[in-house]
């Protein structure tokens, strides 16, 4: 049954908002607010009310929650993971309630996924009268939205640095995302996917014969949310490089390759590093084996699993003779410093590529 009371919201995260909106509106029959795009205001709000030493992704999420609450959201959501993220839902809830906001909180870290009862009980937070059939029907569509987004973005990362008419990829892709925001059903998704895939692949690119390839690795949030890494992929592409990134929702939520990744990483990391750090190591090894020109690790300041991965990455760098650049981001990082390092990174890989 349609619920008119709840307005759900999940924090901004890459371009996945339309997928979360779809499952809430079509599956749970609950209204959904897409929070405003992340801006400096978001991170300022988030930092103001967060503990100083918490990782930047928490600050971004908190900022998003506040902006969404101000716009009328009253049912906030958070996922769970292999690090402090498991506590973040609860912490955000307490902070926001102390600030005086009233809302319901759907925290996936609280769900016991082995118990159907626990799952249903928590789903009732989103809509007390949700229909299991509708939810079940909308899940494959949501997955498809995610897969489409990831497929398109993979293609864009490889080509945007070589587009003939500047801005064409971004314009076309934004148009597509706008349409996804009001998606009606899976059939419409298929049509849109077909039209826009054609549009994207028809965009003229001019690739040289020798292409510089760069691999992006890092913590789950920072590597995926462009604002939190200072739009690094965009900045790198401007130099005329192919950007490769393995980490996305498709490769973790839909086709979880955790085991396979751990095996790849095994020679360098025998034990579980926590969160997605074993992925980070495995990706670095893959990129190195495939003769990439360089690797960039982005992480939130104080992300312990990624810090543990750093010395391991230095071994990978040494063994495969591939440069790996490390970036730590907090809410206060200077943009000039980031640009200086990126420029130097490009000069370095370009000179090596030529030589």
């Amino acid at each position, binding site marked *: 049954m349609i619920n008119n009371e709840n307005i759900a919201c999940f924090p901004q995260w890459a371009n996945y908002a339309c997928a979360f909106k779809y499952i809430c509106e079509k599956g749970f029959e609950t209204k959904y607010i897409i929070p405003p795009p992340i801006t400096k205001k978001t991170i300022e709000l988030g930092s103001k009310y967060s503990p100083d030493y918490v990782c930047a992704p928490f600050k971004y999420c908190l900022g998003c929650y506040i902006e969404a609450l101000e716009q009328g959201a009253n049912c906030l959501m958070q996922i769970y993971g292999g690090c402090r993220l498991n506590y973040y839902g609860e912490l955000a809830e307490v902070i926001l309630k102390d600030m005086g906001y009233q809302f319901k909180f759907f925290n996936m870290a609280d769900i016991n996924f082995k118990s159907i009862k626990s799952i249903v009980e928590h789903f009732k937070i989103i809509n007390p009268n949700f229909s299991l059939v509708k939810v079940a029907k909308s899940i494959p569509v949501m997955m498809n939205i995610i897969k489409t987004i990831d497929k398109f973005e993979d293609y864009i990362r490889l080509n945007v640095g070589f587009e003939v008419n500047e801005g064409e990829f971004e314009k076309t892709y934004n148009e597509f995302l706008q349409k996804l925001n009001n998606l009606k059903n899976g059939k419409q998704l298929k049509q849109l996917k077909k039209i826009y895939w054609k549009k994207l692949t028809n965009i003229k690119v001019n690739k040289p014969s020798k292409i510089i390839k760069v691999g992006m690795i890092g913590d789950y949030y920072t590597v995926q949310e462009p604002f939190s890494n200072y739009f690094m992929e965009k900045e790198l592409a401007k130099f005329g490089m192919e950007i490769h990134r393995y980490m996305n929702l498709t490769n973790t939520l839909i086709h979880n390759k955790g085991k396979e990744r751990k095996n790849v990483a095994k020679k360098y990391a025998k034990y579980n590093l926590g969160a997605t750090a074993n992925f980070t190591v495995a990706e670095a090894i893959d990129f190195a084996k495939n003769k990439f020109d360089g690797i960039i690790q982005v992480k939130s300041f104080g992300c312990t699993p990624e810090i543990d991965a750093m010395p391991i990455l230095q071994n990978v760098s040494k063994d495969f003779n591939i*440069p790996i650049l490390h970036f730590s981001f907090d809410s206060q990082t200077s943009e000039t410093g980031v*640009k200086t390092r990126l420029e*130097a990174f490009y000069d370095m890989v370009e000179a090596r590529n030529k030589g």
Partner: protein
Amino acid sequence: MRGYLGIDIGSISTKGVVIDENNNILASEYLWTEGDPMNAVKRLLKVLEKQLQGKDVNIVSVGTTGSARKLIGAMTNASVVKNEITAHAIGTTTLHPDVRTIFEIGGQDSKIIIIDNGFVVDYAMNTLCAAGTGSFLSSQAHRLGVSVEDFGEIALTSKSPTNIAARCTVFAESDLVHKAQIGHKKEDIIAGLCKAVVTNYINNIGKGKRIQSPIVFQGGVSKNVGVKKAFEDAVGAEVLVDPNGHLMGAFGVAVLAKKSGIEKPFSFDVADIEFKTTGFECPKCANHCEIICVFKDDVLIDSWGNKCDNGAVKIGQ
């Protein structure tokens, strides 16, 4: 004669070098930025112009580097605007083609550059914290009542350097005060400080890096013989300091300007032209990008800072 001007505008000091086609230095100057990069460059240009008097040099290309490279690039109509890591690497490899490791400690930053076969293969730069940089040393010199120029010589007279906690400037400072109060000799404390700077450097940006000889040490702090010696003790190898080490960024970007082949008209008269910058917050979305506009005699010549096209300020507006 054709000349190439390289300017390195750091947070603390501004460096300028004019070279000829064979990379010979025709003029050079090093002065304090004093928080005003535009004025510092004007002063710099006056000095360089004087040094070139009677030499019949025609500057055909300008390169800028350092943290104010963009601003000064707009001001001097530069052909090349390069980051300081590349500029330093190019400058050093031009003078020392066999160099493998570059240590660089400047006023507020420090970096390490690893070179293999003349190519940069790895580098790191300090983030977040200015511990162990030039400004730390000069504030401690002030505290101890010695001039920073004498610091190195005094350090060399010490027979047993005091151990000073090096991880953090704040702790280093309180440790230093403590050691002085319990009676450590001044020269030992000074030598200990030099050691602390090196320990900090090796453990932070030098961490995990393959440090191999030949090693060149540059940046303002390389003029401090105490730090140079502490480096040699720490890595167990000779550390070279080029007499022009403090100018290496400017020299490197002059070489890059020459190599670029891009020639743009330049005249020392820019030192007399009025440049102004204004900053404003773009009101078009909640991101509030800080946009900087540069005016030359009240005409807008460049702007930056906008994250999207909505905030773009068009030249000629």
